[in-house]
């Protein structure tokens, strides 16, 4: 005869195992809203982070490509950029101005599109892992995409930015540290661009600045400063 105590103990053991497995298993089916294209493919969870693993632009691009090509074989990149959101090191403006000075950031966002699925894909990459994946919107044939890997990696972008503008430093205002942007349409044309966003000091005041490079040639295109003026704030021409 099996005792009640033994039954309860074995039920608890089985329950703990099943509970833990269920917690970490992906959902059986993605959450789908019929009225729109909004689908959560992977829900954000801190359990997926393996600890601090800052990635370069190229490494983040590889993670995004790997995930996106499994999503759809024709997935094409619209933009990939580093962000402060979900970056445990980027807490509070002005607290960590040197963040990203080595060309590495912990948190990245990628936007891709698939003509076949007629959808866009939004990825949040933290510490080298896709922690969130969302489908939304539709494939827009008018938005240019980027077929190639970044021609310059972020550590080199920082070096080039500081070479072109020696006073270039980490972010001011809302952005913390240095940020990297790889996007299509950044010049208002289909040409992909690489950008480094930071700040510069002018008469004791710190302004957000952005240094733009051609993805195709690797050449410096322009440096712009974000200023408030009549009619609102805007990126001014070369400083």
């Amino acid at each position, binding site marked *: 005869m099996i005792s009640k105590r033994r039954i309860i103990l074995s039920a608890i053991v089985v*329950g703990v195992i099943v509970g833990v497995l269920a*917690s970490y298993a992906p959902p059986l089916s993605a959450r789908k*809203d019929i009225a729109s294209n*909004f689908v959560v493919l992977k829900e954000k*969870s801190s*359990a997926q982070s393996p600890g601090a693993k800052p990635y370069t632009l190229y490494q983040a691009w590889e993670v995004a490509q790997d995930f996106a090509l499994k999503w759809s074989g024709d997935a094409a990149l619209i933009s990939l950029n580093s962000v402060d959101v979900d970056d445990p090191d980027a807490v509070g403006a002005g607290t960590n101005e040197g963040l990203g000075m080595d060309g590495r950031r912990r948190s990245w966002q990628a*936007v891709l599109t698939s003509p076949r699925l007629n959808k866009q894909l939004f990825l949040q990459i933290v510490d080298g892992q896709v922690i969130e994946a969302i489908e939304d919107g539709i494939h827009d044939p008018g938005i240019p995409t980027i077929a190639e890997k970044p021609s310059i990696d972020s550590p080199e972008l920082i070096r080039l930015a500081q070479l072109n503008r020696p006073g270039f430093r980490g972010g001011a205002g*809302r952005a913390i540290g240095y940020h990297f942007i790889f996007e299509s349409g950044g010049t208002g044309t289909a040409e992909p661009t690489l*950008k480094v966003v930071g700040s510069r000091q002018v008469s004791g005041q710190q302004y957000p600045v952005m240094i733009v490079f051609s993805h195709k040639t690797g050449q410096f295109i322009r440096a712009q400063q974000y200023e408030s003026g009549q009619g609102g704030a805007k990126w001014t021409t070369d400083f």
Partner: protein
Amino acid sequence: MDDRLLKILLFLGVCVFTVSVVYMAVHVRDAYAATHYNATTTAYAFGGTGAAGVWLQQYHVANHPPGTLCNGQTDPSGTWAWGTRIVMDGDVLQHASNNNSYYRRTFYLYDNGDVYCEKGMYWLDVHMGRYKTDAVQYGNQWRGYTRY
């Protein structure tokens, strides 16, 4: 009820209870902060390059810059990080470049606006791409949204 059936029921009951407790404990610990707001939302077009330095697309939104005062109170949304994800409670109608209409619910924060806080706390401005008509038709809408 015979003894065997009772034992099976006891096993299943304890098992289900344990699974629930463990599952909830893990999920509560790992949940990222998500907060719901109700606020005035508007729309704009032809944004060009947003305050974060990215070329604005139809999945982008703006909100108040840091330190914006709304009726003497600082709008806390001014400190939200670039890249903050916003999910609207309801769909937003947009148009692709070929004029096809579609719905979108997910937006990412990459721009600033309304520095004098004419729109109130937690205001959001949805970017409509080059569709100024969509922005005008959107007007002022009181909407619910969740910040992730």
